[in-house]
């Protein structure tokens, strides 16, 4: 009974804190014109309606275009970009973890590239790929790739030697040690890396769209700005927050938890 009560309070606290943020927002909005800061109630109303009916999209952004097309475009770019980047990053990291020669060759440039914030490199992506979907995909993939390569190499370095020494005493070959010790041992750290990549990538897709895109939530926000359609900017941001929340939740539930059931808490 006492445990239930504690659990109840634990779930209630975030509800309260989020409600408090909305309340303060609402209070401030009373003193500002809606163009500066619309009230949260109006934003939520518009947000809920947005998938069904959004006349401003055809007025401000582009004639006759459907709001949902912009949402789907951002979602699609996110998933394609993240998948390419994360998958190739892990594979490349595993190759570098295997071969000392390749690792010594590639690690210094990777360390340098890592220090360049991917966003600062955005102009290059635009110059090379144009204001098209490919430049947004390239930015997200590039970020996820560098992130996961470094993450994978570090995870491999962190594997406790006791495990592969133990494996060797069973007569395991180098390839067997890699497959049965290194790969399972690095999974928790890789999951941590993927989580960060997922969260940051939503921001990157939208930012890349700000810089010029045919479709996407970022494109919508940019089109709303000159018309001072502030509420629409909030609606866009709300969608991105929801997507980021959902991807993290589903990733943890469907992939991370089953893969790390063995881990002590």
């Amino acid at each position, binding site marked *: 009974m006492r445990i239930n009560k504690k659990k109840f309070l634990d779930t209630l606290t975030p509800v309260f804190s989020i409600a408090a943020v909305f309340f303060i927002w609402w209070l401030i909005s009373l003193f500002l014109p809606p163009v500066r800061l619309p009230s949260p109630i109006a934003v939520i109303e518009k947000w809920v309606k947005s998938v069904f009916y959004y006349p401003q999209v055809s007025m401000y952004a582009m004639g006759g275009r459907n709001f949902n097309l912009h949402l789907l475009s951002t979602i699609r770019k996110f998933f394609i970009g993240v998948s390419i980047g994360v998958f190739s990053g892990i594979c490349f990291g595993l190759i570098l973890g295997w071969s000392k020669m390749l690792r010594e060759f590639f690690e210094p440039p990777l360390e340098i590239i890592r220090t360049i914030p991917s966003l600062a490199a955005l102009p290059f992506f635009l110059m090379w790929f144009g204001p098209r979907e490919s430049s947004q995909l390239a930015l997200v993939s590039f970020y996820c790739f560098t992130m996961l390569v470094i993450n994978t190499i570090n995870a491999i370095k962190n594997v406790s030697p*006791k495990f592969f020494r133990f494996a060797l005493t*069973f*007569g395991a070959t180098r390839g067997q040690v890699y497959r049965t010790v290194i790969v*399972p041992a690095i999974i928790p750290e890789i999951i941590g890396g993927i989580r960060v990549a997922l969260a940051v990538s939503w921001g990157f897709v939208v930012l890349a769209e700000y810089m010029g895109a045919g479709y996407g939530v970022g494109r919508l926000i940019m089109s709303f700005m000159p018309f001072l359609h502030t509420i629409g900017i909030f609606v866009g941001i709300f969608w991105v927050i929801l997507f980021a929340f959902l991807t993290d939740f589903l990733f943890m539930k469907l992939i991370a938890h089953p893969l790390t059931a063995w881990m*002590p808490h």
Partner: protein
Amino acid sequence: MKSKVKIKAEGLCKIFYSEQNEKNTVFKNLNLEIYDEEFVSFIGPSGCGKTTLLNIIAGLETCTEGKILINNQLITKPGADRGMVFQENAIFPWRKVIKNIEYGLEMRQINKQNRRSIAKEYLKLVGLEGFADYYPKELSGGMSKRVAIAMVFANNPDTLLMDEPFGSLDYVTKVELQKELLKIWQKERKTTLFVTHDLEEALFLSDRIFVFDKNSNVVEVVEVPFSRPRGEEVRNSKELLEQKKLLWRYF
């Protein structure tokens, strides 16, 4: 019976270099012979190189000079013929208990059915029948040690290297595991090299005890007089106490 030499060290020398490039010599000129099916213990102060010796025999480290032979073959790398139980808990946390025990067999590509039945047999032998599908995180320290022992025995090595395997356990668990180890050893008769700090443990388990000093010289080889199989009465016997006193002189 003690005729065939199993492991032989000749003029063994091991030099380590610390990070400050300081030279640290562990063995100067170590010679020893261990016979087939013998149970020997290595005792001595910390840092005297007992673990290093075991690692060299396991093939995890190389010696600087001299040579070490097993069945008259030079040891160059680790192999399934030498199983090792480490001081730290090294069983694989991502594998369930039964999969851990199958590990060595899996590496040697033994088919699934055979390795499952062998693993089950050893799981039973260490008294963990009900824990096949547990993850190591759900086991106590003593149970994890049992799994490690089952893993090593299931792989059927002919030499067993044990590096303070029970060092971190409480007394009761330790005594219990010593009994179990002796029981399995009695059945399978593997040449066993056992590193320990515990004199009682060394006397209870071994045929011979190698006593090292802090400069890693063997100062004494004690023949343990108790007959086998040994029961709990040996542990509390007057003779064991006397032997213990004799060994104390070297510390």
